């Protein structure tokens, strides 16, 4: 079984503001791993020990993104990939297209991917779109906001929470699952793994390698246009 975990680096929610005069977002502190993604890492670490899964992590964005991939190594990831790009963070169409391309490339390099795991959403734009859009790009079945996940051979049993009820779905693999924070309590990573993470190699990928030209992300091709940002009253 091969699992690819998608990680996102986000502004620290306590360190973000909107300029009242310019209407632009500004960040004060260091960026952090999307808090929801800690639960994704925990699930991948559990699948690694229970199902002997090959645990691969992928994150995209500019250079500092490497920091969140170190966290994946601390959770026991076998290999991390960094897709280096500077796409508009609010454009989840473009992000999903780029990440889907990277997943295809990793599958070529490492072998077929059985499960793509992503967080429920992030505090960056709060759209919660990227996971579902990647599933669409890759034509994978998906289960979103999953609180419990079991593996039965080539099938997943995914329990979703819906309005106080549990909804159980059986999804054939390969599939994409987004993880609800109620799924688990993330572990404190082992100090030895945490330190070794700084010495592990993160493989770099570029958009050209994925066969994606700048046209794929040109204005009008991604269906997202940010009109205005403003501070809440």
């Amino acid at each position, binding site marked *: 079984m091969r699992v690819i975990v998608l990680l996102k680096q986000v502004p620290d929610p306590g360190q973000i503001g909107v300029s009242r005069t310019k209407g632009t977002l500004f960040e004060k502190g260091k960026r952090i791993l999307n808090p929801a993604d800690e639960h994704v890492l925990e699930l991948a670490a559990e699948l690694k020990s229970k199902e002997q899964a090959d645990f691969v992590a992928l994150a995209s964005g500019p250079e500092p993104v490497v*920091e969140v991939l*170190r966290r994946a190594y*601390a959770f026991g990831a076998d290999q991390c990939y960094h897709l280096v790009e500077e796409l508009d963070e609010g454009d989840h169409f473009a992000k999903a297209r780029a990440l889907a391309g990277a997943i295809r490339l990793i599958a070529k390099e490492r072998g077929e991917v059985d499960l793509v795991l992503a967080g429920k959403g992030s505090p960056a734009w709060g759209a919660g779109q990227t996971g579902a859009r990647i599933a669409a790009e890759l034509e994978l079945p998906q289960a979103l906001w999953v609180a419990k996940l079991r593996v039965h051979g080539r099938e997943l049993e995914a329990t979703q929470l819906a309005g106080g009820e549990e909804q159980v779905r059986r999804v054939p693999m390969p599939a994409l699952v987004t993880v609800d924070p109620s799924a688990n309590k993330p572990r*404190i*990573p*082992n*100090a*030895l*793994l*945490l*330190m070794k*993470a*700084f010495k592990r190699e993160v493989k770099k990928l570029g958009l050209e390698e994925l066969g994606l030209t700048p046209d794929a992300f040109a204005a009008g091709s991604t269906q997202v246009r940010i009109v205005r940002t403003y501070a809440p009253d």
Partner: protein
Amino acid sequence: MDFKFTEEQEAIREMVRDFVDQEMRPRAQAIDEEEKTDFNIINKAAELGLMGVSLPEEYGGIGQGKVGFCIFVEEMSKGCAGTATAIGCHQSIGAMTIVVDGTPEQKQKYLPDMAAGKKIGAFALTEPNAGSDAAAIQTTATKDGDYWILNGRKQWVTNGPFANVVTVFAVTDKGLGAHGGVTAFIVENTFPGYVVGTKDHKMGIRGSESCELIFDNCKVPKENILGQFGAGFLTAMRTLDMGRMTLAAGCLGGAKEALKLSVKHCSERFQFGKPLAEQPVVQQYLAQMAADIYSMESMIYRTAAMADNGQKYSRESAICKLFCSETSGRVIDTAVQLHGGLGYMREHPIERIYRDCRINRIFEGTSEIQKLVIARDVLKKGGY
């Protein structure tokens, strides 16, 4: 001059902080009541690699050096000074004697199990008649074929009730005195004649158990002589250089916790129609506490960086121990004052922190001994 911590050091701090928040702080009050070292916490720390933060990577430690180890002790001491003392002692004066002066065989035999937390370390120097006057120890070691036979009593041995590997200092030649006549031995708790004595009942750091150790014709193999024969006092002093600096880091952690609690209390407690924090006299207290903490932090990490760079740091380590134990005592005393009656109540953590911090001016060399060490060095080599 760059005072930035490395990314690795920041990562360790964050990880230990999570461990303290989840495992240590919530148990601190109960541990104080129970007066026992909490082995659930020790075992969890071991699983996470935290029993070998200071130990070299080649022996299964995480090789974080002195700066990393001070960060570790500082963070742990915020949550529970007693547990921090048990874990800190194991790695500093417990295992460090073997790191400093052990042979390759001794390191291979003991350090991997100590780094994994499978064996707990301790350091036995103090005796009923030899406290500050450590050279007056009376425990003897006499040769008997391939063994040395130890006889005597050590007291107030931190981790003594459960330690597996203890560095014991004994007189091997009375005529030569402290320098030449004292030898260090690695003693396992399974050696014949090793007896665990009465457990101590303490004012504070009650999550750290200590006791008397009795050596009643205790048979120690000759290969367990640690360091040079007759140079045990040097082993003790070199180990204490590190112990004193890390103890200062523990003082810093306690003081930071006291300031944090004080800020919270003074922001939430209303008197005369406004929060205490708006009273100028309270702000003066808080400002002095912050300034004291900044001074402590600066000297500890400067000294730890000196040690990691291979510089001698005996004087500086003694200065850290003296200044930080005295200063954190003052900071924590102020915190009790700011909490008023609540600060005197068992239900509030600041009462425990106040009791916990008092020992810092006494163990691993009293303030008076630190002054002696510093003054001798200043008189010998000059000031700054």
